[in-house]
């Protein structure tokens, strides 16, 4: 089988565009009136307008109305549990004055030229598409009104659309949307300045939690179709033996025993790709069979010899020494005010601490899986991917086809959390179908494949140093963050966090400290680094919020009061004044860092949790607050630590401010989920490497939180916000405060300070075992 064309590497191209656009900063490509926020005085593009896919708000692309009055809304962002299929559809339906029970949703295939940005990560679907989808709905509504007015020969001002009908005020005539649809689609699309958006007081669905999930019924009946569920006539099932060490190459394999397994049809080599890994398949040997079990048994029977390559001796325990050396010497300065180094050397109470976060695997419940078929020179893929267009680009390049000959259908994603932004598995399916002369092939990853061949959350060591003045408040703050960069997955030799990585919760601390110095040491990567829900905010939030708690205790102060005093009075900070040039790609004017909102979530969470109440020995409350993805979150966790070290969490109070709230019930669901996932990060999950290999394999040695460990109660406190406040992210920002809040609570309960995640093992000998049924 042929390999890819490196010069036309689609995955690289797309990523490179993103990176170079970020690097060039002020380069103005074009200004689209409909896209994001473009300020007249600036050439920089922000929001979705700065993404390669941009914004599309053409109603004819997203809405079709059928003669039977069914309203079909096309959702272009993948659904991975965040509820976006429901939430974007309800925005369109509301402005359209559609009746929710008549709304159906269809999932867009990969096509950013048609739909705009589909890259679903960074908690930005609603941030970037709330207003465009409002415009889509409003434009469609006005076109229906115009069609009715034309049919009746009356001025458009005399007709009004309401609940799926257009009425003529004077004569009480009415026409249903279904009756008008054919004529409406030929009406001119209203110009942006003519659009009449609803007053928020008129919203029926936006902000109401009145719309049940469009997929809920299918989910509870087992009808919902995920990537793993694709079935095509004549389809083969493939399981792949991949090199255990990143960069490993196949030397030799013997397929005889595999081919003898009943049901096995073929054994096919997948070529490896030179490092950096990018989105490309890892290479290896695929066993194709008539069913999944035969493919699994066939792979077990394979005899494969590998050349393990340059990463064969990587050891994550030894790598901790590299990280320690990195954070204990001066490094690249990314923010500097005053003279922290001099201040740290003067008198005063001096504190220093190092915080460790291990590699993490995403472990979405649906492991990677994808299906491809090639027919008449066209390739069609079905895959659970967060980055549909990148998947299409990858398949296009791997097969040497034209983009127009590649279709990528986006299935439901059975969890993703960042893993499925990287579509190597879909590339495997395409290559295998090609090797089988176009026959449909479904690639299945086992859990072991998923744990061992992830794009991991980066390991990191954070060092913080501070010196306290006579009043106990810090005079100096030094923070070094050592972690491999996700860029290393795309560019050979990239080292240390870049501005989009230290931009996640490190650079922009809004604390009133006179001397601040933030540094990024160069640290190499020896495995594929990817994005994990809330990404570098996890390590930065854990370190900063733990250290603030340490400082408060050293100063003899209450941690809440101490943090509020450091934040200071409410003010709107330009992120650039904090050396944050990135700001999650958002306008610093539209999205300043609002210390008033940060204070408010801290005050809300602590007051709801009964902060300051006296608690028996072994129990405590811990606080942490973080600002990420343009949203503010504060968690107070109540913990009870048993004599054997067992941790019980009676309650979590999480206050959250994401600005405008479109679907409050799904916001709550995302926060509950972020809390549970944050507790897994805090208590359980750790990926380690020895001899270049991942040592974990499944939920026995990469445990995740189970129901008995879940908090007895998660109380969510959504800050009221008007629709004047632009929406912030929802999927990720609930996670960063969880681990530090838990560790701070454990300190309050036991006096024991935990600076290394996961904490599970040092506190007790508990093993998380599956309870057999």
């Amino acid at each position: 089988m042929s390999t890819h064309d490196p010069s036309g590497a689609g995955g690289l191209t797309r990523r490179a565009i993103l990176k170079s656009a970020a690097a060039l900063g002020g380069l103005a490509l074009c200004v689209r009136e409909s896209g994001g926020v473009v300020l007249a005085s600036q050439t920089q593009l922000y929001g979705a307008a700065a993404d390669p896919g941009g914004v599309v708000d053409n109603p004819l692309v997203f809405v079709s109305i059928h003669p039977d009055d069914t309203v079909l809304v096309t959702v272009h962002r993948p659904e991975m549990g965040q509820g976006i299929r429901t939430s974007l559809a309800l925005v369109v339906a509301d402005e359209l004055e559609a009746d929710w029970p008549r709304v159906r949703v269809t999932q867009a295939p990969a096509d950013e030229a048609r739909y705009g940005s589909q890259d679903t990560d960074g908690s930005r679907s609603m941030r970037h598409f709330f207003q465009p989808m409002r415009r889509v709905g409003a434009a469609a509504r006005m076109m229906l009104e115009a069609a009715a007015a034309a049919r009746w020969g009356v001025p458009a001002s005399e007709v009004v659309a309401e609940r799926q009908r257009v009425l003529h005020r004077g004569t009480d005539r009415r026409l249903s949307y279904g009756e008008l649809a054919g004529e409406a689609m030929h009406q001119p699309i209203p110009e942006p300045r003519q659009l009449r958006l609803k007053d928020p007081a008129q919203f029926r669905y936006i902000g109401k939690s009145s719309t049940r999930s469009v997929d809920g019924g299918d989910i509870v009946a087992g009808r919902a179709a995920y990537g793993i569920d694709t079935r095509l006539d004549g389809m083969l099932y493939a399981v792949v033996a991949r090199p255990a060490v990143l960069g490993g190459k196949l030397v030799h394999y013997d397929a005889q025993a595999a081919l003898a397994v009943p049901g096995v049809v073929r054994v096919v080599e997948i070529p490896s790709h030179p490092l950096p890994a990018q989105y490309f398949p890892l290479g290896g040997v695929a066993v194709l069979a008539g069913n999944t079990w035969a493919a699994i048994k066939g792979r077990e029977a394979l005899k494969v010899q590998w050349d393990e390559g340059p990463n064969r001796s990587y050891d994550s325990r030894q790598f901790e020494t590299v990280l320690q050396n990195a954070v204990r010497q001066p490094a690249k300065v990314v923010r500097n005010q005053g003279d922290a180094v001099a201040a740290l050397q003067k008198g005063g109470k001096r504190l220093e601490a190092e915080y460790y976060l291990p590699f993490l695997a995403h472990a979405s419940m649906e492991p990677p899986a994808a299906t491809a078929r090639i027919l008449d020179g066209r390739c069609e893929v079905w895959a659970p991917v967060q980055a549909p267009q990148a998947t299409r680009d990858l398949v296009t390049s791997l097969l040497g086809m034209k983009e127009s000959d590649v279709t990528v259908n986006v299935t439901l994603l059975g969890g993703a959390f960042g893993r499925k932004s990287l579509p190597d598995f879909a590339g495997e399916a395409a290559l295998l179908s090609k090797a089988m002369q176009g026959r449909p092939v479904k690639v299945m990853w086992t859990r072991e494949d998923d744990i061992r061949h992830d794009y991991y959350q980066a390991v990191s060591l954070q060092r913080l140093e501070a010196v306290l003045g006579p009043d106990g408040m810090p005079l100096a703050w030094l923070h070094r963050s050592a972690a491999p960069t996700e860029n290393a997955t795309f560019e050979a030799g990239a080292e240390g966090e870049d501005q989009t990585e230290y931009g996640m919760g490190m650079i922009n601390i809004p604390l009133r400290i006179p001397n601040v110095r933030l540094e990024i040491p160069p640290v190499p990567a020896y495995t594929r680094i990817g994005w994990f829900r809330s990404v570098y905010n996890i390590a930065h939030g854990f370190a900063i919020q733990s250290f603030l708690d340490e400082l408060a205790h050293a100063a003899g102060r209450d941690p809440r009061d101490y943090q509020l005093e450091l934040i200071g009075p409410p003010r709107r900070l330009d992120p650039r004044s904090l050396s944050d040039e990135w700001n999650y790609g958002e306008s610093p004017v539209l999205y300043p860092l609002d210390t008033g909102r940060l204070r408010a979530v801290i005050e809300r969470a602590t007051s709801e949790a009964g902060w300051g109440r006296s608690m028996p020995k072994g129990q405590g409350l811990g606080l942490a607050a973080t600002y990420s993805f343009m949203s503010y979150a504060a968690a107070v966790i109540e913990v009870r630590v048993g004599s054997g070290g067992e941790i019980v969490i009676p309650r979590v109070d999480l206050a959250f401010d994401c600005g405008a709230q479109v679907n409050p019930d799904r916001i709550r669901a995302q926060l509950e989920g972020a809390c549970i996932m944050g507790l897994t990060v805090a208590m359980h999950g750790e990926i380690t490497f020895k001899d270049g290999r991942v040592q974990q394999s499944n939920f026995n040695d990469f445990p995740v939180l189970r129901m008995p460990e879940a908090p007895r109660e998660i109380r969510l406190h959504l800050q009221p916000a008007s629709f004047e406040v632009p929406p912030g992210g929802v999927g990720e920002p609930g996670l960063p405060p969880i681990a530090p809040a838990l560790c701070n609570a454990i300190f309050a309960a036991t006096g024991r300070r935990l600076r290394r995640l996961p904490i599970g093992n040092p506190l007790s000998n508990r093993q998380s075992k599956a309870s057999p049924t």
Partner: protein
Amino acid sequence: MQSELSVNGVPVKVEATPDTPLLWVLRDHLGLTGTKFGCGMGLCGACNVHVAGQPVRTCVTPLSAAIGKPITTVEGVGRDRVGRAVQEAWLALGVAQCGYCQAGQIMSAVALLRASPHPTDQDVDSAMAGNICRCGTYPRIRAAIHRAAEQLRSAP
């Protein structure tokens, strides 16, 4: 080798080796894809179905162990009142996020409510401890099980 099974009340014939896990028989041979693969080691519960009324992890249950016994999968669980009550409670409380593990969760919940119609929080935790949800829907699953139990008690 051909075997006869009874799935959701329907007799079916499958051609598969007797060691094939029931999971792959259901999914690949019979096209019942509602039952999910999660771990392959009986650790996560995504593949739970009922065999002769008992919750079973199909990823570690060979086809040979299911022959001659009635099998109920998520596609058929709504055919009785307990299954329906659980499905309705799941919808009313918006339990699912990605939804992938929910078939297994629902099968465990239905088995719990059949065995103990008045479950305590502790009963729920221990019955559901074998089912992993990576999205973190545990608080709503707990609430939905209690809601379904209440609903079943009030409308016997």
